[in-house]
């Protein structure tokens, strides 16, 4: 299948390893990946911060860039959520019904990675190998905007060598929320502290998710604590094989040793 990669601006700029892993994974499964280079950002940050007029040009660009492709895949529940739930809304708000219809059309062919693997390709075992203790954070937009359900967990359970441990209070938001983390930094930090405490109780050495943004937030907090837990995008785990094991972590300081007995972060609030 020919798949257009919607890389997302965050992965492109800050977490390219998640996007590289998506490419490697899809190619390993026998699909052709194309990267429409005129893509930039879906505009979610603008919409969610209250700038729908600025977002309009980005929506227009996104729709124009991806309209020619039958299937679009992104390693981000949040950005796919924006394409699916916000693009047509932004277009209609601006009175552009034609753009709204085209946006809905593109959205109907746009998938978050785990949706694409499980629903479109019909695979849960992607042949990955990842010998680590892993816990999964179901990011809010994957969970509630896209309803990816247990698809990521089914994919993770099929990874050889992987020890999957349940995250307590998994469905609670990590406190990122885009510009929320800046505009309401104190509340965001309090939510992150609880998320990190739950991650640490699992004694996992890797926390994974389908969104680079939430992982950057959680990983940034864990790094500040020198907790020794890495955050790794789901795509990297699924791309990892015995021949080509996954590389670096998202948003952690290099060279920090793994410390499963790291102190409870609740005390550092």
């Amino acid at each position, binding site marked *: 299948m020919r798949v257009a990669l919607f*890389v997302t*601006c965050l*992965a*492109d*700029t*800050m977490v*390219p390893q998640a996007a*590289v892993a998506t490419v490697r994974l899809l190619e390993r499964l026998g699909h052709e990946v194309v990267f429409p*280079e*005129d*893509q*930039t*950002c879906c*505009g979610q*940050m*603008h*919409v*969610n*911060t*209250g*700038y729908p007029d*600025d*977002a309009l*040009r*980005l929506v227009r*660009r996104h729709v124009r860039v991806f309209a020619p492709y039958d299937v679009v895949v992104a390693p981000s529940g949040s950005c796919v959520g924006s394409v699916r739930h*916000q693009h047509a809304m932004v277009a209609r*708000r601006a009175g552009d019904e034609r753009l709204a219809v085209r946006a809905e059309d593109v959205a109907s062919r746009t998938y978050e990675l785990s949706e694409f693997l499980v629903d479109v390709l019909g695979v849960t075992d992607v042949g990955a190998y990842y010998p680590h203790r892993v816990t999964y954070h179901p990011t*809010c*937009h994957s969970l*509630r905007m896209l309803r990816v359900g247990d698809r990521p967990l089914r994919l993770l359970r099929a990874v050889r060598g992987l020890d999957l441990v349940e995250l307590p209070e998994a*469905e*609670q*938001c990590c406190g*990122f*929320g*885009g*510009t*929320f*983390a*800046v*505009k*309401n*930094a*104190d*509340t*965001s*930090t*309090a*939510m*992150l502290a609880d998320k990190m405490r739950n991650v640490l109780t699992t004694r996992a050495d890797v926390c994974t998710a389908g969104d680079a943004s939430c992982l950057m*937030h959680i*990983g*940034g907090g864990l*790094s*500040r604590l020198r907790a020794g837990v890495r955050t790794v995008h789901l795509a990297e785990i699924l791309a990892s094989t015995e021949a080509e094991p996954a590389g670096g972590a998202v*948003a*952690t*300081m*290099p060279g920090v040793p793994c410390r499963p007995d790291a102190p409870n972060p609740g005390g550092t609030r």
Partner: protein
Amino acid sequence: MTRTFLGMPATAPPGVGHLRGDEPFPAAARRALSDAQLRRNLGHATATIRARSGAVIDEVPDWPQLRAAARAVKTDTMARLPELLEQLETAVTRAGGTVHWAADAVEANRIVTDLVRAAGADRVMKVKSMATQEIGLNEALAAAGIEPVETDLAELIVQLGDDRPSHILVPAIHRNRAEIREIFLRAMPGVDPTISDEPAALAAAARRHLRETFLSTRVAVSGANFAVAETGALAVVESEGNGRMCLTLPETLITVMGIEKVVPTWRDLEIFLQLLPRASTGERMNPYTSMWTGVTPGDGPQAFHLVLLDNGRSAVLADPVGRQALHCIRCSACLNVCPVYERTGGHAYGSVYPGPIGAVLSPQLTGVDDNASLPYASTLCGACYDACPVMIDIPSILVHLRGQAPHPRAEATAMAAAAYTMDHPALYAAAQRAAKLSRLAGPRGRGLPPPLSGWTASRDLPEPPAETFRQWWADR
């Protein structure tokens, strides 16, 4: 209506009632976050209600259908609100009641004060009511020399503690029983000085205190959970029986009701009376459901007044996206699942309507400029939408209101510049290459300027990658 209608409907007036806070949400939240006792009380209480509510909702096989039905009834109601309100007025009048229309808080307070004075009373007993909290009725009555006595236990705790409610359903959720004992010892007349902090002992003390009020007060003020347009019946649901006392014992009953509380038919109640208790208190059915229609000679209150309160609701109704906030049945399910509410508590929202529904309702009632920080008091995690028994899409309304909120000039400039750059791929790629966030941000991002320093106060920015994805792609 006493006002001449001059174009767009008015928002709730400033200077009266409790819809506006003294400071923006982030500042109020910061103070709440530093209160460890508050964090513990709230975390414990919301987790308990969440678990209980989730369990009883799971028992109902047709919960999704009930939610959809409730939304359909509410959408229909809002579409023909004027007609239904006139029908309600006719039915209430026919049943012996008197209907008053209050454009805003000032007018509603004046109507109620005049009615109490006309009844010759200097004290009223009150059923817990969000509408009267919204308009600051207690303060208005006190200013007129009339003593309001709250009869809901939690509302009484708030009143005696000279405090403000912090939760729609559990106004004293921010207090634990040791703190409540202190309040009773300090402010409740005739309380046993050796009283323990056992819930039963505290409830017994409140009951003794209230019994005298119930038997000696001639006027009561209530809110209403529902009003049935076709019959003129009003309904109040509560858990302690105090409401039933207030609704049946006095000679005069005054009900203050937001105009959105009307439902078309008696049959519609069956939907809401199933949804409300499970979503709010986690009970299968409501302990006390009181309904009354006008007056009955020789039985119950002999004078009944219904005050229909607008106070910004028509303005909300005029917004096609925002109007679904008026579907709210004040169950507080969204508060109990909201991670922001759980950590900051209700006072941080500055309004009697806290939590996710407050973040969309308060700015609409007052006009967004007066509550501009509230639409941002959410991560848009969507837990509130999932929990709402009438399916109010709160995240979408939050985003919609952010689009109307006044923006800081620097932020608006940056957002426009970012959008322009992102609409020009060559510029965008150049910006990616040039920005080298490490240099801008310093080690672990600690050198970022405000407001971005808020992020790096507690988090490390990731190591900037050696190359962007598009560079990797171009080179492969």
